[in-house]
């Protein structure tokens, strides 16, 4: 019994929360519509958090995530409002996010700069560029309706954002868990020297991880813009902490200490369901923070590290 707790504590916490809200407010919380809602609400966070999962996999940090989310949305929206076709706008925005990620990866791997302060600095830089490009305001005019489909419409009753999230999650899970690249990535994170001695191109692996983080963050920003019909130069601000929180919560699942996609999904779900359930219960805002904090700590304690 206690062994099960140790192994699946985080998952048990997730089901515990679901159970609790279902009992307190079954008519609203425990409905298909609401679960679909929740997947839609976490989708953007989850996509950014998958980027964080790659980064944690190589034992680094990418603090430019928030700036990249904002950047991705602003560039795409800005291009559209200056008349560029929406598909091309998306591609250009993703291309820039990719290049930015590669640059981060280059600085961290080839030049061996510490990722924490480096990405903080490059994130500041990118934030400045985003401000400059947007003039600091919301961009909303000239965004075509076609662009809004992926953020706002449903397909067979399921929001397209949710479908996209599941698609990216599945694909990333495959890459990280089933392919040789995934193994190279985790071994780079586990012991860089040993990985290098085994012939793994650790620099290349790191650059790919940062590029993935860049592209996924940029894409999260684009989706956000599509969802809101507008883009804002600080729209991504809240995603840095929550993306890493989800990914870190996820590390407590399955293999100890390793970031993994399903773990991250559980982490994002815990956070998403907390926000959803507490709002439905009409909990005062400060209590929401207090309860969320307690639940996460409790989930972590439930699981307790195997080292203990």
């Amino acid at each position: 019994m206690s062994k099960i707790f140790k192994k699946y504590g985080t998952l048990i916490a997730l089901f515990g929360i679901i159970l609790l809200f279902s009992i307190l407010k079954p008519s609203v919380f425990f409905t298909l519509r609401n679960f679909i809602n929740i997947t839609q609400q976490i989708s953007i966070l989850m996509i950014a958090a998958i980027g964080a999962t790659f980064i944690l996999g190589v034992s680094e940090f990418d603090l430019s995530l928030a700036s990249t989310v904002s950047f991705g949305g602003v560039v795409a929206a800005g291009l559209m409002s200056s008349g560029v076709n929406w598909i091309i706008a998306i591609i250009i925005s993703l291309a820039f996010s990719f290049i930015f990620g590669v640059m981060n990866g280059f600085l961290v791997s080839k030049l061996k700069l510490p990722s924490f302060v480096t990405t903080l600095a490059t994130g500041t830089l990118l934030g400045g560029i985003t401000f400059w490009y947007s003039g600091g305001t919301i961009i909303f005019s000239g965004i075509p309706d076609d662009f809004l489909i992926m953020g706002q419409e449903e397909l067979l009753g399921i929001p397209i954002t949710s479908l996209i999230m599941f698609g990216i999650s599945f694909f990333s899970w495959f890459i990280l868990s089933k392919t040789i690249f995934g193994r190279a990535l985790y071994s780079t994170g586990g012991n860089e020297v040993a990985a290098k001695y085994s012939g793994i191109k650790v620099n290349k692996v790191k650059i790919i991880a940062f590029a993935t983080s860049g592209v996924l963050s940029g894409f999260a920003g684009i989706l956000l813009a599509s969802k809101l019909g507008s883009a804002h130069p600080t729209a991504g601000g809240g995603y840095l902490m929550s993306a890493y929180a989800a990914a870190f919560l996820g590390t407590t699942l399955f293999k100890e200490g390793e970031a993994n996609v399903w773990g991250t999904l559980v982490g994002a779900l815990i956070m998403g369901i907390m926000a959803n359930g507490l709002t439905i219960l009409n909990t005062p805002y400060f209590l929401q923070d207090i309860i969320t904090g307690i639940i996460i700590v409790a989930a972590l304690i439930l699981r307790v590290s195997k080292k203990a």
Partner: protein
Amino acid sequence: AILTPYLASVTTNTLIKALEEFGENEGWNVTVIDTKGDFGALANRWEDVIAQGVDAIIMGMGDPNQFKKQIAMANEAGIPVFGGDAGYIDGMVCNVTSNNYTLSAQITSYLFDKLEGQGKLVKFYHSAHPGVRKREIVFDAIEESVPDIEIVAEHFVQVPGPIEDARKAMQNILLANPNPGDINAVWAAWDEPAIGAMLAIMEAGRQDEIIVVGIDGNEQALEMIKKGSCIKATVKQDFVAMAQIITDQVKKVFGGEEVTDKIFYAPSILMTKDNIE
């Protein structure tokens, strides 16, 4: 120099942009400083511009009570301090602002009239911002006085990312109140959460039963009103007029004239589908 902690907010941005433009027309050299909501850093920047010896300081938004010492420093250095949508305290030349109490009173009474004095409301607010807090106070007071208005849910909007935050919250609230008539209206302390709430309402297809109002009159909100979305009204703060008044006052001071009034109010207009051109 213009000092602001909130440049990323749409409204502040409108004000600052207009100020920059008017200032440049006058041939002034205008610098804008933004600290992204960090008041400690803003205090530091006050000191820097004072040391730099600018000719005038305009603080855009924020509570001057936090910068008593810096204002005193500016006075000592002979630099006049103006407020743009801030507050007024001793040591400043004047503050030009929309009256937040009035803004709220205008929109709240519009909303309650529209509801004919009864209905179920959702409230979006953010008491950490002094101006926005004033709107909330007036709303609460009026709401208190109308017995048949009931608040079914309220949400403290997270910044940054207020639109998305309000959208998610509204989605959840809608689910918690699923029947027509459970919610009649949404009152938002500014336009961004109003837009977020609107998105959630449209998504749920309940735009015909719920009306949304905001404050500020930002362009996106105005466009939504015009399009006939469920945002029905906002109160437009005339930031351009505000910037004009500030510019005039600054000009006066530069010209050696006295500024007599300590507080100037810029006009505010209730915007509905009827009066948006």
